[in-house]
């Protein structure tokens, strides 16, 4: 469905015609058409889950379309493996970098270049070749430093150089600005301009408005797996784009972007304080700073949303509150325990009433090989209803699990069914039931609705709302604006390595939050 006018595209280098891709019941891409011309910068835009990454992976040769075809220079092609895509001149910089952290940049680049063989590596010759590519892009970095010691912007540059070591006619950048600060973003755009001048096409996958206006020639907007608009960037306003992205064609609503800081908002009677965070700095495992100077209080009977694109420190913040991470500066105090003590561990925080619905459910939230009842028990091992004198009360556990499963409408064969047999949505429901039970005082939920169908999402929201009514504190991490606006009392915004807020939900608009998250506006102090 095309809206607005379309410029005649000169010769398109790569095109999609009617491409559809399904993963089980989910349609990730639906009848997608678009073209990329030589030397053109195309922004591929849409909210989370709109289907952008699938297009990247199709172009990278990681899988093939179910319907439709991909064309290169007008002729249909099939990328059966990444090597085919590379041979066609397509380079990809993925959102999650494929760099070996313990090796140097030069080694990582060498790894990819199979034409170098397996013998002695002429470091100097390779370094020279890399330097040539670097220069063409306007970079320079220490090739011999280990990846794990570099920050994400530098790692990204290495990934770009790595991609450009082969002859590249189309460079795809997947969410490149998600974790960059303003200065690094500018540098990236400069690089893209250079590439354009050299005749290389660029596809920029993003959901940030600022990227589009800074650099794109054309914009293709995706919503729910389908192309809803393909427009030249010239003459577009942010409202146009936001309107297409969120599906709201009412331009005036979209125009209500508040320029400047949100109001502090009316105060709302807050329950008893459970957690206080004071000037906290958190580091990532690779040593870089995830967030600094974070301060807030969390009270009973409220829902605080942690909003933002992944990678801005939210994950570290939630892990810190769960007892898995200690702050490198500042202080957290929850339910009487302090983060500077050695006892700051998940066991302690659970005992104090902190529940945790983890981000990576499969790895940390469940034990796939064990039963539903056992997975439920994971959150209640100290509860007298299920354990007496160290012995498990299996009948009570089975009964409670069965009851909760029914209430949550979990589709499974019974409490003895094995967790890994359940769908992702049903697994999440079990985790939810576990973490909401037992009278927790604070519920930490990292992306609780991720990967779930609409009905289950509504259910999750109802449960969190109920928890608030019951006087519990809820902190949930999300990048879904609808969810945030619907559930939250207060919103804490993470962007560009900083956190702002919490602001009262009533004193900001959806568009304002979106603008902050997208980096379209700087966070107020």
């Amino acid at each position, binding site marked *: 469905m095309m809206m607005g006018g379309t410029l005649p595209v000169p010769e398109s280098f790569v095109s999609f015609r009617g491409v559809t891709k399904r993963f089980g019941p989910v349609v*990730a891409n639906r009848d997608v058409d678009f073209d990329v011309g030589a030397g053109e910068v195309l922004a591929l835009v849409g909210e989370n889950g709109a289907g952008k990454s699938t297009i990247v992976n199709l172009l990278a040769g990681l899988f093939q379309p179910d319907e439709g075809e991909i064309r290169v220079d007008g002729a249909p092609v099939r990328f059966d493996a990444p090597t085919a895509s590379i041979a066609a001149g397509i380079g990809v910089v993925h959102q999650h970098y494929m760099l070996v952290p313990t090796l140097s940049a030069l080694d990582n680049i060498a790894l990819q270049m199979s034409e170098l063989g397996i013998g002695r590596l002429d470091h100097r010759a390779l370094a020279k070749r890399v330097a040539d590519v670097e220069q063409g892009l306007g970079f320079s970095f220490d090739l011999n430093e280990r990846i794990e010691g570099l920050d994400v912007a530098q790692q990204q540059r290495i990934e770009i150089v790595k991609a450009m070591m082969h002859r590249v006619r189309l460079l795809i950048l997947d969410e490149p600005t998600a974790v960059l600060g303003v200065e690094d973003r500018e540098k990236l755009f400069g690089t893209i301009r250079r590439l354009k001048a050299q005749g290389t096409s660029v596809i920029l996958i993003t959901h940030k408005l600022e990227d589009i206006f800074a650099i794109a020639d054309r914009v293709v907007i995706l919503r729910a797996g389908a192309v809803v608009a393909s427009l030249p960037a010239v003459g577009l306003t942010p409202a146009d784009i936001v309107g297409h992205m969120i599906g709201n064609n009412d331009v005036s609503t979209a125009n209500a972007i508040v320029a400047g800081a949100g109001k502090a908002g009316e105060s709302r009677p807050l329950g008893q304080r459970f957690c206080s965070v004071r000037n906290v700095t958190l580091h990532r495992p690779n040593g870089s700073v995830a967030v600094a100077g974070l301060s807030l209080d969390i009270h009973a009977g409220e829902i605080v949303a942690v909003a933002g694109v992944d990678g801005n420190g939210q994950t570290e913040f939630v892990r810190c509150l769960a007892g898995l991470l200690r702050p490198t500066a500042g202080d957290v105090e929850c339910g009487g325990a302090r983060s500077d003590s050695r006892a700051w561990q998940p*066991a302690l925080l659970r005992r104090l009433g902190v529940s945790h619905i983890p981000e990576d459910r499969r*790895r*940390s939230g469940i034990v*796939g090989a064990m039963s539903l009842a056992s997975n439920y028990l994971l959150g209640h091992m100290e509860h007298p209803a299920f354990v007496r004198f160290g012995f498990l009360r299996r009948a009570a556990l089975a009964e409670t699990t069965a009851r909760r499963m029914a209430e949550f409408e979990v589709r499974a064969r019974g409490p003895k069914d094995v967790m890994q047999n359940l769908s992702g949505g049903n697994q999440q429901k079990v985790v939810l039931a576990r973490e909401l039970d037992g009278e927790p005082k604070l519920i930490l939920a990292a992306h609780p609705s991720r990967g779930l169908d609409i009905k289950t999402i509504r259910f999750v929201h109802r449960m969190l709302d109920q928890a608030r009514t019951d006087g519990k504190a809820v902190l949930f991490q999300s990048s879904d604006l609808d969810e945030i606006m619907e559930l939250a009392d207060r919103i804490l915004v993470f962007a560009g390595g900083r956190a702002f807020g919490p602001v009262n939900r009533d004193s900001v608009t959806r568009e304002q939050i979106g603008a902050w998250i997208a980096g379209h506006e700087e966070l107020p102090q």
Partner: protein
Amino acid sequence: MIAPYIRLYALGAIVFLVLLVVLSIVLAGANPVSLVWDVLQRALFTRAGLIEALLRTIPLTITGLGIALAFRARVFNIGMDGQLIAGGVAAVALAPLLPAGPVGLLLFLVAGLLGGAFWGGIAGEIKARFGGNEIITTIMLNYVAAQILSWLVRGPMQEAMGIIPRSGPIDASLRLPVLFQGTRIHAGILIAAVAVIGVTVLMKRTRFGFKLSVVGASEHAAQYAGIRPGAIASAALALSGALAGLAGAVEIAGPYGRLQEGFAADFGIGAIAVALLARLNPLFVPVSAFGFSLLYSGLGSVARKGMVPFPLLNIVEAAIILIFLAASVVAARSKGVEADG
């Protein structure tokens, strides 16, 4: 998704392993079919063979339980031979101080438990506190224990005569009574039964057993749930060590009556095959232990007759373990992979 051809590869591996065993037997000049029959016949249908198998089943069950418990938490205790020795030494060392009769016997066994727990606990502490790999530490401790035993039975604990490297006999009242007249089958079989029940209950019915399973299945999920993997590993090493020590004490209170070098050899390492065959399920351990004991007894008899060298036992043990691993691949359910959008 488990690629379909991997199941085929696993089947191929099973065929290969069976052929390997058959070929080994043929190379010795024996007929595989008649050998199997001979082994079975000597083990099951001769009095001597059956008794020997039953006697071996007792300590093998107890140590097998220890392995099942430890491996369940993915704690690879390869040091049960050393822990068994430690238990035996502790029990015999304390024996002169113990009262006569059943109370003394009970304390004798408890001393064995504690000695083994101590020896296992060393490796446990090293793992919990320093992250030291338990496979290496437990094996090293095996050799240390063997040497300490060697010294003790030639030195401080040697029998009065001072010629043979062994300790003096323990008091007759501390011996496990023979249950069936004319056989050597002793009350240790009851202790083994109690151990089976105890470990089964521990692993399946208690919170600790639950934590063991979680740590073995997913260290991450365990951590997020508030379980401390290091503490669980340390406890697993101490508990399995205790079981090994108990086996050592039982062997001394039962058949041996004294401490000597090489007593109760290989019940530690042999228990690994037993537990793996029982799929780490404590209820199946005695069955598996009996099966391996039959194999040991029958094969031993056959080897004494010169038909086939005894180390075939190790080859068969290895084949059994590998066949079980391959079979689990053949039987594995395909796990669907979630799509990334």
